[in-house]
């Protein structure tokens, strides 16, 4: 593991700017989401965390309650801003979202053992939420991002050893994090945008450029 302290990866001022960009970006995303998916979406105050990559799975497990029974939508994004987006929903969220979005009718009930409709809804909503949040943050930083198709993983989060597969264990990751609340119901989505080590150099530069327009 690298001996560089996390404060050197992203300084206090840089964190503050990134925090501000997330406030603006996620706020704009939430406002636009209402128009796209006809659902009132509330976002918690976003946070920024810098971690050594191997600590990522434990960190996510701590942040998501009841991580043993969740659905995760995983989507890669790449450009100058590069990394992986993980959106974790607790059990039953797919079904609740189906009901809220008005796509649920009696005929579709459990007609398939793979619960295709729930999966489809999670994937659809996940794709839109990830696109909205990544897109808005990238836009503020002057970048345009491309995405891989989303994948849905259902089950135990401990099986998802994201960092090993995606990130070099010697490196750091920057986690941009927020929680979605949907409508009046208690459906929550935990979003983690994990920027790879490679994009940290660009990110620091982009943060400075962002601030320079106010100086």
């Amino acid at each position, binding site marked *: 593991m690298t001996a560089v302290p996390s404060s050197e990866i992203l300084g206090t001022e840089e964190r503050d700017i990134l925090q501000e960009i997330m406030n603006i970006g996620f706020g704009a995303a939430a406002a636009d989401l209402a128009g*796209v998916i006809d659902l009132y979406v509330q976002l918690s105050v976003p946070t920024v965390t810098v971690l050594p990559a191997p600590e990522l799975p434990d960190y996510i497990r701590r942040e998501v309650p009841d991580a043993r029974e969740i659905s995760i939508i995983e989507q890669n994004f790449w450009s100058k801003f590069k990394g992986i987006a993980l959106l974790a929903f607790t059990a039953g969220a797919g079904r609740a979202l189906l009901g809220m979005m008005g796509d649920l009718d009696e005929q579709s009930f459990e007609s398939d053992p793979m619960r295709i409709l729930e999966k489809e809804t999670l994937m659809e909503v996940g794709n*839109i939420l990830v*696109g909205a949040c990544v*897109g808005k943050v990238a836009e503020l930083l002057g970048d*345009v991002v491309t995405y891989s198709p989303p994948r849905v993983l259902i089950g135990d989060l401990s099986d998802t050893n994201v960092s090993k597969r995606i990130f070099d264990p010697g490196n750091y990751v920057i986690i941009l994090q927020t929680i979605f609340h949907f409508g009046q119901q208690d459906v929550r989505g935990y979003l983690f945008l994990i920027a790879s080590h490679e994009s940290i150099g660009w990110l620091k530069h982009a943060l400075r450029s962002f601030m320079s327009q106010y100086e």
Partner: protein
Amino acid sequence: MNFTNVFDILNLGIVILDAEYRIRYWNEWMVIHSGIAAEEMLDRNLFDAYPALDTPVIRRSFKSVFTFGNFFFFSQKLHGYLFPIKALGSFQGQFEHMQQSCTLCPLREGDGIKVTHICITVQDVTEVAAYEKTLLEMNYRDSLTGAYNRRYFTSRLKEEFERHRRYKRSMSMLMIDIDHFKSVNDTHGHQCGDFILKSVSATIQSALRRVDILARYGGEEFCCILPETTFEPSMMIAERIRGLVESETYIYEGQAVRVTVSIGVPRAPVSGDTPESFLKNADDALYEAKKIGRNTVISFP
């Protein structure tokens, strides 16, 4: 050189829409596979050209790409296809329409930020989908009779029972056993026994609707779920099956073989019943039918 003609030699459908969902580009692949000339499609609204695409999910996906600039993926597994294009000859038996994996991609103009157009790419994945379908069928069908296997039956019984419990939908079940099947095997050999299993399965299937679920439950035992069917009609269906099998003469290598079936029919589930207790009632009814002399239909409780 103008490289735009690359779009016309790709083995991929490309359709470009403007912000009003008007088709601005329809590549050669789309012309060849849909049979519709580009001139006919240009400037037409996508949803006028294909009203079936006007669903909340598809509307949302386009809106999201225009608003957020994300990519939107329509996988074949979940959607089958976007554009109703006839499947190619050899796949027509399995699919009416070409199975597609489609992506909506944002196209930006001017400042490079605002999404002004959407590019839809259409990939033909029918061949892979056909292999997958065959593998799945192998996974839930009984290889001898072609009826569903016991595992599939058990999972569907749970689902149908849950539907019945939650929405008060009627459901019925038949448990069918070929009488004296052992003597068919002993007298005519096991190959004839297999032939009888296949033939009786086909006879039962001929008395059922497409929505009914016929499974081979054990050796010579079949189970059938009849969704949306109350008890009385299920007794009539059971009696029809019994009569059909009794009147049939199955010919195996020139020998006439006649068999009969006993059928147990559980009464409609009541509060407190479970898929297991419902199945047990069917089993008890079948046991009773066997006990009183076979070739008969009995209900329980």
